[in-house]
């Protein structure tokens, strides 16, 4: 082909190339699930991957709902809390409940799945238009109920769950994190390394960021001086900024101590870092209630990184990748 023709053709191509300048764009999807906003980010713009993640999350939302009658054929936390008869649940839900049942012994009782009546009591008080502290007698009764493990316990046989006694289930302290753990496989199946799952700003799952050093930056709403740089890991955060009320100078949070029945916040923020998002979510609650020393002990035993801030002092350890802001 002659030079002139080649040149003419090449010049003609340029405007077309200008018009097509575009690559894969990041994509996010958000949905209100588990009474909070869950957002998934796929930085490579994989919509099919995100669709599947949210389809699974939506299914879990039905299973973990404690406040509404589930659709026909679905056995949820609501179902279990409204009967003492055996309930056949899905295998994944049974696995979660089994995990929750194993935690009280590993956390010196600071985590208890049958805390439902106690948290409901505090929720009623703290969420009122004029927040109030529940009656101490009611709190004591709820604590006694939890402590009476002879009559109040969860029996799990395969996929059959039987709630004995009057204490009710509350999966709020572990549900979001567990669900993120369960959907993590979708990103692996789609070979999507660059992702971020944000479960209501308190449970997170991080892939590997596609630029720079591959880490995602986490900052805290309660702490202006520190942050975390994370990749290929999970993070559970418990903090007073999620829900709190100040009554007579005392800050109360949504995190209730099952041993004492108190919702007075002993800390401002506590975080757990590890591979298992469910464990991190549960342990962040435990760390929040346990205090700095116990946090270190439990975190070390569990092989988790930790961050603890009580308003004056900040501690971290077990490899938590903290940086100064």
């Amino acid at each position, binding site marked *: 082909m002659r030079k002139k023709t080649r040149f003419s053709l090449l010049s003609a191509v340029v405007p077309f190339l200008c018009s097509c300048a575009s690559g894969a764009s990041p994509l996010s999807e958000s949905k209100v699930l588990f009474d909070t906003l869950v957002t998934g980010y796929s930085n490579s713009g994989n919509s099919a991957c995100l669709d599947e993640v949210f389809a699974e999350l939506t299914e879990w939302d039905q299973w973990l709902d404690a406040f509404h009658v589930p659709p026909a054929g679905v056995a949820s936390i609501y179902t279990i809390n409204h009967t003492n008869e055996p309930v056949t649940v899905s295998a994944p839900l049974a696995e979660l409940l089994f995990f929750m049942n194993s935690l009280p012994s590993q956390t010196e009782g600071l985590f208890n799945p049958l805390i439902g009546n106690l948290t409901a009591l505090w929720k009623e008080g703290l969420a009122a238009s004029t927040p109030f502290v529940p009656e101490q007698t009611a709190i004591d009764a709820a604590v006694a109920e939890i402590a009476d493990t002879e009559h109040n316990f969860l029996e799990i046989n395969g996929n059959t769950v039987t709630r004995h006694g009057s204490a009710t289930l509350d999966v709020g302290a572990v549900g979001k994190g567990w669900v993120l753990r369960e959907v993590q496989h979708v990103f692996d199946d789609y070979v999507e390394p660059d992702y971020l799952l944000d479960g209501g700003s308190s449970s997170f799952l991080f892939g590997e960021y596609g630029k720079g050093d591959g880490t995602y930056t986490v900052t805290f709403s309660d702490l202006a001086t520190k942050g975390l740089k994370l990749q290929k890991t999970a993070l559970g955060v418990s903090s007073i*900024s999620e829900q709190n009320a100040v009554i007579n100078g005392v800050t109360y949070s949504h995190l209730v101590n099952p041993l004492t029945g108190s919702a007075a916040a002993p800390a401002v923020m506590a975080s757990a870092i590890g591979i298992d998002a469910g464990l991190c979510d549960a342990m962040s609650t435990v760390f929040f209630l346990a205090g700095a020393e116990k946090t270190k002990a439990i975190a070390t035993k569990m092989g988790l990184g930790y961050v603890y801030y009580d308003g004056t002092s900040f501690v971290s350890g077990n490899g938590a990748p903290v940086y100064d802001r």
Partner: protein
Amino acid sequence: MTVKDFFRRHAYDFLAVSSVLVLSSAALVYYAIPKREDLIASVFVEKSLLATYDLSKETTERTIEIEGKFTPMTLGIKKNAIAVLESGCKSQYCVHQGYVSAANHPIVCAYNEVYIALSGKEPVNSVVAGVMVL
């Protein structure tokens, strides 16, 4: 003139036509491929940036009034889409485009010198922990 002579005479014309046809069609096919992406709309008036909207965060459809160079305009915004709903220009090209939801597909009102650029968002690599969003 025989058919062969005709094609020989117009060979380079056909080459030009086919090049345009192939390249344009390829571009249009590329445009037509549906892509879900988070979009940011930047509204420019007379080359100055007037406003930026994160369309991925829009939950309901809403309208926004802006001042073009000569007449006011009404923009419609919804999740990952933007449109010019009303304009005082004569040609109304901008209005006829309807809602646009593809990155790099601009909406232009030449009369009012309004340019709406749609771009994909930057990858997310940071979060704030501890704030309940609902």
